[in-house]
């Protein structure tokens, strides 16, 4: 056993750290220092910067335009990314449709789409959930009916993050209404500029606009945009669920957030001292750090197993559950430890420590962390099946 990075990995870490120091825009860092998320231009600009360096599609093999890094390198990269105050890349292109395309896509699809994802020039969104198909995704109803060289898509998607920022959408659609639920689902790539697509914003309780409803009315999608064959949609969706687990626990960002919280407590005066003088506040932080250490070393074990080429089973499925619970616990501590400074909402001027003024945003935003991508309850059902051999 050995928990140290190799000499090469340490050199890599230095290289990455230096690059981030030089390349993260000050405005982006300022936002994340206050716990705020970037806007569209900042996010896309940053992804293009990463793309130019070749560090956007970090999980991809070299032959598809990725850097060909090991799992440890990807983990180090993510640590340094969060440490530098840079946001994670939007997952829809690089972590989701990209791997689907280089695994299941046709030569033409790869040629057409991969470059734009790698460069950060083309942005994607994910059309999975529907109003009556949230946790029960297999019941989705959006229909794609073959009509000559096209599918004609009708239906409605919901909770579509960044649909209003996206050029393309990868969708689960029903191509066969007769067969058993999962079997009639296909995976379709839809150009968001196609006529018949209407996007309606959904405002979230953090006060921002991330989510959308997307309505499809007689949207004509060329058949060459079908990935794999008809009915393969469910298989592809399941593939994505077990892909790429090195960063799912959110360790890098949680580490940064705890450091930020400590700094906020030290920077906030209380009488003649500061909030960090409160032993109970320090204890709360310490307990979060201890929980984070457990998550971090479990994540290390998963990374190491990935390096050994081992399959990822129930061992890593807990990472999402614990990781999201911890993200929520950290933001809740941030909100609560700020006292009345955390109660301000739309003040432009700082009220005391501005970082505390903005804690509520991340706290509210992260309520969704235990819901999206399959609620934690659904995740537990899945793990229970494995444990009980059901």
């Amino acid at each position, binding site marked *: 056993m050995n928990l140290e990075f190799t000499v090469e990995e340490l050199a890599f870490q230095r290289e990455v750290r230096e690059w981030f120091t030089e390349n993260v825009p000050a405005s982006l860092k300022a936002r994340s220092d206050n716990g705020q998320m970037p806007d569209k231009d900042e996010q896309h600009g940053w992804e293009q910067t990463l793309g130019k360096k070749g560090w956007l599609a970090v999980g991809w093999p070299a032959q598809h335009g990725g850097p060909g890094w090991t799992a440890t390198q990807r983990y180090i990269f993510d640590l340094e990314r969060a440490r530098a105050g840079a946001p994670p890349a939007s997952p829809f292109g690089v972590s989701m449709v990209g791997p689907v395309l280089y695994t299941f896509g046709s030569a033409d699809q790869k040629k057409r789409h991969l470059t734009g994802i790698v460069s950060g020039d083309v942005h994607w969104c994910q059309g999975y959930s529907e109003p009556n198909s949230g946790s029960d995704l297999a019941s989705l109803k959006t229909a794609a009916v073959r009509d000559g060289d096209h599918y004609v898509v009708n239906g409605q998607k919901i909770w579509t993050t960044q649909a209003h920022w996206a050029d393309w959408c990868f969708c689960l659609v029903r191509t066969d209404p007769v067969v058993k639920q999962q079997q009639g689902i296909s995976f379709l790539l839809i150009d968001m500029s196609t006529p018949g697509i209407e996007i309606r914003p959904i405002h979230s*309780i953090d006060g921002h606009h991330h989510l959308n409803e997307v309505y499809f009315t007689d949207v004509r999608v060329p058949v060459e945009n079908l990935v794999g064959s008809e009915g393969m949609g469910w298989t592809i969706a399941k593939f994505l669920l077990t892909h790429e687990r090195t960063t799912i626990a959110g360790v890098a960002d949680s580490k940064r957030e705890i450091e930020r919280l400590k700094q906020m407590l030290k920077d906030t*005066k209380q009488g003649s001292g500061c909030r960090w003088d409160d032993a109970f506040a320090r204890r709360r932080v310490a307990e979060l750090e201890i929980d984070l250490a457990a998550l971090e070393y479990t994540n290390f074990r998963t990374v190491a197993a990935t390096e050994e080429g081992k399959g990822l089973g129930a061992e890593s499925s807990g990472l999402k559950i614990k990781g999201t619970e911890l993200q*929520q616990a950290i933001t809740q501590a941030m909100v609560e430890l700020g006292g009345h400074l955390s*109660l301000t909402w739309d003040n432009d001027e700082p009220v005391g420590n501005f970082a505390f003024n903005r804690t509520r945003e991340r706290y509210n935003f992260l309520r969704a962390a235990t*819901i999206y991508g399959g609620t934690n309850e659904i995740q537990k059902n899945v793990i229970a099946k494995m444990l009980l051999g059901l």
Partner: protein
Amino acid sequence: MDFRLSDDQRLLDDSASKYLAGQYSFDLYRKQLSDGIAFDSSRWSAMAELGWMALPFPESVGGFGGSLVDIQLIARRLGERLCTDPWLTCAILPGKLLEFVGTDSAKRLLADIAAGTARGAMAALETNGHYDPGLIATRVTESGDGIRLHGIKSVVFGAEYAHVLLVTARAQNGEAMLVAVPSTADGLTLNNYRVVDGSRASEVVLSGVRLPASAVLARGRVVIDAVKRAMDVANAAICADLLGAASAMLKRTQEYARTRKQFGVTIGSFQVIQHYLVDMFIETQQSESLVWMAGILGDTPDCADREQAISTAKAYISRSAVLVAQKSVQIHGGIGVTEELDIGHYFRRVTHHAQLFGDRDHHVQRYMACQQRDGKC
């Protein structure tokens, strides 16, 4: 032991419930939220006519001599309806502060508040004071004919709707003072903003505000003691507000679990969802018990008994209401984190009230201090 409401209390509760059902709604709340408003003068007048402003104040100032439980009955209904009208922050809190300060000038001001003709706001906390009203950097300097105020009071709830701000400051010799600052005073600036529950607060900047000596309502130890006691009254009301909000969330979530289908069955048929709901129900029941405990035992000038009662209730309820709110959102799933549905708004209201004038951590520590003092203050 008797937990029944009196006939008068039942009437009060009914009228509050009916008034809000008729004159307030989620749509109205959302419109105010998007307009950046948390006040309506016709509703304010109506509430005054219903007697809500005079309710808990002595008859000598035109009040009805109501109890802390009476305050809680209204607060619970406000929480239940997401109402952001500044009844607590512009009438009850400043009014109680004036009542507890008890000087003649304070009583005169209180009479106006009780009559609904004036609104106040308590400007006691500062950015470097956490929840401690004793940590005051704002300075008052006295000269022959008057005083001057310098400093910033922080997160003053309802300040932009107040005619008079009740400002705490310290004299050169360290003595605390309570000063009535008219909202029109020269050198007074309000920086207004929305707070988490959708209501409004302000940074109150005092840049050498000049006032006559008569503006000093009280000085000495009574000032901080009165602020603390007024915050305790507010916390009893906040506990009831949290109960109202949490009960509303539980009710909506039960209904959602009964009707929302996934996997061909209602989500309420899943045992884990059922147990979540039971946990929420039990927490709400236990919270209600402590709301009334705080209402009864917190209505006393004895600071040891009062602080223990209020801190027990707030420590418990701020945790349990947050748990109920979090689980409600979780059971609702995606729709729970949107502005469309009221659940997310209740969630924010609970977040806000759970830490308004002290979160669980603060009140557990105050409870411990009460225990260590062994009944003495």
